[in-house]
């Protein structure tokens, strides 16, 4: 109980205080400088708007959240598989790694319309954009983890006539767990961005998701609603990132330190 309390004080209180300070300054700024509400609405207006459009925001939150989580899980699975393939030979790495970098460098806003043309405006297209954009951090981190194996341990497996498959499943993959978790944390935040960008392009037909809400609200100059939507998106990213971090830390602890 005391430990939980101390955790809250040391981990939750500082960012909360910072938040309060910023919100207060923001509020004062809008009052003192008399800024127009369509340029910068005050925090109270944004909060009011969040309540007014609560249902709409909540359903957008759920839609985008689901798309981002599915996109993230797909990139976790496929990214790890691709990294396993990369770990098997330097030739495979040299031949295919440039195309993995392509995932990182391609402007996602440029290929999202293509994806909509190819796969339609539904859920699957948004998931695909989220998947493409979050795949790279998993591939690079997992590949690094699979390759950074203690050379003595590799010798140990060689001396026991281990097969390639045994070395992969019993040595490389378990060794790579911490790196895969690092990659997953990065990918989880990016997956939300991917889902929102995907909705920019797919959402005008399906009329769903936070991305669509942003797209719809911005030209109407409902800046308070826009702010509320941006906050909802940030919250979603934070939530998924925290979830992945908590699960990741739990796995790491049970992985190395025993059940106790």
């Amino acid at each position, binding site marked *: 109980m005391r430990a939980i309390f101390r955790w809250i004080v040391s981990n939750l209180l500082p960012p909360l205080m910072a938040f309060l300070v910023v919100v207060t300054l923001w509020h004062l700024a809008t009052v003192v400088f008399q800024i127009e509400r369509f340029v910068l609405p005050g925090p109270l207006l944004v909060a009011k708007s969040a309540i007014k459009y609560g249902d709409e925001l909540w359903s957008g939150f759920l839609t985008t959240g689901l798309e981002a989580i599915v996109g993230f899980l797909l990139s976790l699975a496929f990214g790890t598989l691709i990294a396993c393939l990369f770990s098997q030979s330097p030739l495979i790495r040299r031949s295919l790694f440039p195309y993995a970098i392509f995932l990182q460098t391609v402007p996602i806003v440029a290929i999202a319309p293509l994806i909509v043309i190819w796969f339609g405006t539904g859920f699957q297209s948004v998931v695909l954009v989220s998947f493409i954009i979050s795949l790279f951090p998993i591939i690079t981190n997992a590949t690094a983890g699979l390759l950074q194996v*203690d050379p*003595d*341990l590799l*010798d*140990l*497996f*060689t*001396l*026991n*006539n*281990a097969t390639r498959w*045994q070395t992969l499943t*019993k*040595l490389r993959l*378990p060794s790579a*767990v911490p790196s895969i978790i690092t990659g997953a944390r990065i990918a989880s935040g990016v997956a939300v961005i991917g889902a929102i960008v995907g909705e920019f392009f797919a959402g005008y037909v399906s009329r769903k998701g936070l991305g669509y809400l942003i797209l719809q609200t911005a030209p109407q100059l409902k800046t308070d609603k826009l702010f509320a939507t941006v906050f909802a998106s940030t919250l979603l990213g934070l939530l998924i990132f925290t979830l992945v971090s908590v699960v990741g830390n739990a796995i790491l602890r049970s*992985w*190395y*330190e*025993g059940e106790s």
Partner: protein
Amino acid sequence: MTITTDTAFIHADQVGLSFPSVSDVLANVNFDIPRGQFVSILGASGCGKSSLLRVMSGLQTATAGLMLLDGRSPGNARENNLRSAFVFQDPTLLPWRTVRSNVSLPFELRDRPESEYLEHVKETINLVGLTEADADKRPRELSGGMRMRASLARALVTNPDLMLMDEPFAPLDDILRQQLNEEILRIWTDQKWTAVFVTHNVSEAVFLSQRILVMHPRPGRIAADIEVPFDYPRTAKLRATAEFAELMGTVSQELRRTVE
């Protein structure tokens, strides 16, 4: 070339090891080790003693001359069920596995059913002085000495014909090293595998072995072949005798000569 080494379990004939653009690691290494002998390879740091061990294990192939284990090349011998075990300088345990599961690894890699080896694993863990409670711990929960015991158990569990040990006790403090020296001798006296023990510690070499090969650096070669006449079982008392001190002096002088 005819092979006239019926009596030698390990036969090294003009063995050399060199890499492009590096000075020779080993050159003209010759020796015969009969089955069941306890041999120490003693030398200063960087004299090639670890490389020699790696050639014996088949992890590295000699670039000149001939190394034979039981009449076959080390790689061939290993793949055809010559039971050789390697103990590394670090315990090289898999950190996500318990001690029991680490010691079981050689059987797992040979696809043996658990029922066949679990009892033997348990006995071997006890043999090296670890308890049932230790068996369920992860390496991180153990002291350095206990980790090394677990590493020894993993090597011994296969009932090896040959134990190759690469300075296994070097990182341990002196008292612990002496205790483990006594225990490894107790097990060897019982099981009589052939032992090749690499060390830079004169006292350890004299205490353990029937024979000491002193190595000369750059390129690595055998400088002296010294017999150790003390009877087994050897106990801690041996270290306090005048004969022990005298032989240590002789061996130390040989070792000094290699670096001057």
